[in-house]
Every structure is written in structure tokens, then in C-alpha cells.
């Protein structure tokens, strides 16, 4: 009936009265609490998944000054549309999908700006990399420079599979496409990445080992 019925048994309730429960562990119960407008549910959602969402965004986008804004977007979107979540147990996967959607929008927006400036994309430095004082290694930055030259969907599949280390089925779920589609994207991404990485000295070590 409810997700908290067993928790209620443990309550030190008075003979008659009202008891307020701490939020339960399960995602189903958290979704129920969110749908019902329980005041502390939004904070619990954020505390439970903010790190995951930021990590997914970072994997796909690399160093980007807008990642925190995107984390905010993801959670506000999720809170606004939580009632559309059909399967509460899939809360984490659903948040991942929203994060991927936000990341894809961000990447495409960058691409549009390049187009509007009438400059070939390969001549443009990554906007994000210029804009942030980022202390990652040169190899890390080179990886994301190379990824920036890939098709957006291929890039996302690559980042989730090889950087985040997700299973193929999970990558397909996060991108909301079939397994076959993800395999095709990854195949294209491998080839494209190998080509895009050639001008990057910091990746020469890996390129040297590439078949």
C-alpha cells in the first residue's frame, strides 16, 4: 500500500496522535513524497543525486563553466515534472536522462554559436576551455578537445561508455535509444575520436598504441 508501512511499525507513537517520519530510503517512497509535496522531499532528492548528476554532466561536457547551472536546470526540471515519472524505481536513470538531455542542448548551443560566427569549427578553441581556469592535465583537456569534434550523440555515447564506464544497455537507456543504435554510435565515435586525437600531442602515447 505505502512504502513506509513497515517504518510506521517502528515509530514511538503515543497512544493516539500524529507522527512525522524521516524520509524513507527507497526511490519509490521518495518519488511518492515528491508527488505529494512533502516539504523535505526536494532536499532529499538533491542530496541523494546531485553528485551523480554533476558527474554525468562532467563526463559528457568535460571542463565547462556552466556545469553547476546545468545541475540546477536538471533538478528544477525534475521537480517540475516528477509526476511524469512512470516508474519511480527508475528515478536515478530518469535523472541521468534529464542530465544527458541538458548536456546535449548545451553542446548543440555551442555548435550554433560557432556557425553564427562563420568560422570553421576546427579553428575554434573550445569556448568552455577558454572561459574557465581549469587545472586538469593536458591529456584530459586534449580528450575533450578531441571529443568536441565528434557528432554530439556519438560524443555522448563515447563519454558514457569509455569515461563513465557504463554498460552498453545503460548507455542506451540514458540516451533513450536502442542497443543497436548505441553500438552504431560507439563504432562511429571510436573512428572519429581516433582521427580527432591525432593533432593532440598529449594523446600521442595512446595513439601510438592504437591499431
Amino acid at each position, binding site marked *: *500500500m*505505502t512504502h513506509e508501512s513497515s517504518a510506521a511499525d517502528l515509530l514511538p507513537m503515543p497512544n493516539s*496522535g500524529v507522527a512525522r517520519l524521516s524520509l524513507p530510503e527507497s526511490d519509490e517512497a521518495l518519488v511518492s513524497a515528491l508527488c505529494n509535496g*512533502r516539504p523535505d522531499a526536494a532536499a532529499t532528492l538533491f542530496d541523494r543525486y546531485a553528485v551523480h548528476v*554533476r558527474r554525468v554532466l562532467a563526463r559528457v561536457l568535460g571542463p565547462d563553466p556552466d556545469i553547476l547551472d546545468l545541475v*540546477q536546470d536538471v533538478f528544477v526540471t525534475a521537480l517540475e515534472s516528477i509526476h511524469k515519472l512512470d516508474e519511480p524505481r527508475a528515478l536515478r536513470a530518469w535523472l541521468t536522462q534529464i542530465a544527458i538531455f541538458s548536456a546535449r542542448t548545451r553542446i548543440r548551443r555551442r555548435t550554433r554559436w560557432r556557425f553564427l560566427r562563420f568560422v570553421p569549427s576546427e579553428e575554434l578553441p573550445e569556448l568552455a576551455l577558454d572561459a574557465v581556469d581549469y587545472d586538469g592535465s593536458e591529456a584530459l583537456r586534449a580528450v575533450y578537445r578531441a571529443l568536441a569534434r565528434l557528432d554530439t550523440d556519438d560524443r555522448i555515447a563515447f563519454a558514457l561508455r569509455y569515461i563513465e564506464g557504463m554498460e552498453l544497455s545503460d548507455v542506451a537507456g540514458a540516451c533513450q535509444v536502442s542497443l543497436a543504435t548505441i553500438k552504431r554510435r560507439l563504432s562511429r565515435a571510436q573512428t572519429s575520436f581516433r582521427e580527432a586525437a591525432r593533432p593532440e600531442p598529449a*594523446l600521442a602515447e595512446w595513439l601510438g598504441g592504437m591499431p
Partner: protein
Amino acid sequence: MSSLPELLSDLGNRVRIEQDALLCADHSLGAVRSRVLGLERRPAPANFRHLGLPAAGALGAAAAALLGLHLLRPAPLGVTVATDHRPIQVGDWIRAGASKVALDFSDGTSITLEPGSRARLEAIDAVGAGLAIETGHADVQVVPGRGGHWHLSVGPFGVDVTGTRFDIAWNPEAEELTLDMHEGKIMVSGCVLGDGRPLLAGEHLTASCRDRRFQVVRPNTALSDSSAAAEVAVPADSGLAAAATSSHAATDALSSAALGTPQRAEGAVLLPDSWQALARAGKYKAAFAAANSAGFELEVARSSAEELSLLGDVARFGGSTDSALKAYLHLRRRFPHTPLSANAAFAIGRMEFDQRGAFAEAERWFANYLAEQPHGPLAREALGRRMEALDRAGNIDAARAVAQSYKSSYPRGPHMRLAERLLEGR
């Protein structure tokens, strides 16, 4: 030499390790948390710096408008414990120990938990609330005629209420629901009851998901459904005895009970193969055949409001639009200004739309429903259907006006896509 995927995985591992170290050292999420929790009920923020000032201004205005709508929304009902006026919040558990605990809602509705009962407030809004009864017995008195919508979760069963009075009990050990109707009508659903069965005043329901059975009993009457059950318990003094009587006697009893009262079946005998029993079992084609056998016109003439509504549904689901129209129109003539009459208007509108493609007619019936029950349980659907009917009828200006109203009232409604299309002039 390693394969390309292996090499890429090695490279990805290195990136991941370095990224994780950087993310761990970054404590900026706290500021995001504050912003999210401050904005949680507002529209998703746009990344203004990428949009330019005009777009940002437009979005800002839209956000302000949406926020305004949010503020204009009616406030949810209040609920307190009757004895000490302590406010109850969504998510709170309420336990009645040795004494009763009465919950008073600000619209006048009252739900009293009997000693030993436990329940949880699951939801509350401007027109009703959701309460999960974990165990025990509750006396429910929902104020009728205010377009309210209340939902009780009872084990695997659900009870939808608009305005009525009844007693409900749930025994989680036996997994048994019992329900005594005192006034009005409710819809009970779940498990052996499927998508929903109406329960009328005077009826007593027992249902067990574990035993796959349910039973509806009236004074001297038992209606039961074995469609999903391995066995059906029927009291010896009711249904079986009734089954031994002739259909003629039963019809007479029904007829005499029906005259002059909307509760015509109170105390009457209903056979298991009567159209009412078949309809409540969801066997609409068989029910329609039974109603025709009994004389459809006769049934229309002597049915109560509840039964006319049911008879209309039986004919509609039985495939006869004309018969359904007859029952619904009769209901509207005999019982005007009632929620059931408004429901009949909605059903007629749906038939005009779906079966006849008479969109202008359909629009008129949906408008009738809205005029009679502006906050009724079907109001959202009626407004959406009205908009759709106007659109199909080619009355685009009127459809747009309804779309604006729909967007304001039900921004997350199922017809929102159509409303947006109309408002965008597509």
C-alpha cells in the same frame, strides 16, 4: 597490441580518475542546492546568457506569468486533529490508540479513525485529499456538492469519493476490505474489483485480494462476482435464496421499489443475471442483452438516477448509441441539476464525438457539463474535449479561447499539446 575499445577504456579510466579528484575538491554544490530548493516550484530556469536579452525578457515574462498563475491557484484544504486542532501535513501518520481520532478538513469533510487504526495523509489539494488506511476502521463523511475528489488507499484497493458517507475497514492480516455505504455513491477499484465498481447507498462490500473474491450485499440481497474468484461466499439468506425466485417476481420487486424513489432497489431482490449485476461485473454486452430482455424502455422508465446512469453505460459499452442516448436523456429529464445528470451530458458528448463525429453537437454537451459541474471530476476532460470538438468543427477562434482557459487551469493536462498548438496558430 590492445584493441581500440581497450585502449579507449584505459584512456577513459585516466580521465575518470582525474575528473573525480577535481569534482571531490569542488564544494560548489551547496550553492546550487540553495538555488534549487528556492526555485523548486517555479519553471525550469533558462540559461539566459546564451539567449540574448529579448529572449531572456520573454522568458522572464513567461516565468512571471506562470508564477502568477501558481499564486492564483486555490489553496489546498487545511486538516487538523479535531481534539487539539493540531495541523496535519502530507506524509504524517495518524494513529488512534485507545480512543478515536477525528480529522477535520477545512471544507467540512470529516474522517474519524476508530481505536487501533492507523492512516497516513498522502496528498491534499484544494478539492480533496488522499489518505492511506494502513489498518483499522474509519468513518468517512465527505461533504457533497463541492466538486471534491477524495481518494482512500486501502491495501490493494482504492476508493474514489466525491460526496458521501460510509464506513470503511481494512484488516491487513486477513487482507480484507469491508465497506458500508450510508449515503451517495463511491467507486471502489483494485485487485478483484478491477478498474472500478460503483457502490451505492445501503450496499455492503467485502473484498479480499488474497482469496480472490468480493461480495456486495444489500438487505435481503447479495450480488457477487466470480469472474476473478476461485470461490465466492454468498450468505445463505440472501443471494442464493434470491436466485430461487422467478425473474418475474424479481422484476416486480424492482418495479415496485423503483416507483417514486431514486433508491428503487433498496430492499429489492436482484438476480445474479440481472442487467445491474452483470453491469457491475463489467459484463456490459450481457448486461445490455439482459436489459433488452427485461424491456429496455421499461427499465428506463423505472430506474433510479444511479441505475439510469449505469443503464446508459451498459448500452454504450454494449454497442447501442441510440439506447444509451435514451437512458442518458431520460436521466437528464428526470433528475436535472444532479452530478449524475451532468455526467450524462458528458457521456452524450463523448458519443457524439467518438461515435457520430458530430463535433458541434459534442461541443454543446461538453459545455453543458462544464456549466453544470465547473469543478466536477470530469471538468478537465470536458474542457479538453470541448476544445478538441471546436477544433474539429473548424471553429478555431472559439477553440483558441478554450485553449487559453485550458492552459490556465490545467497546464499539465492531457490536452495541453493541442492547446499549445492552437495558441501557436498551427
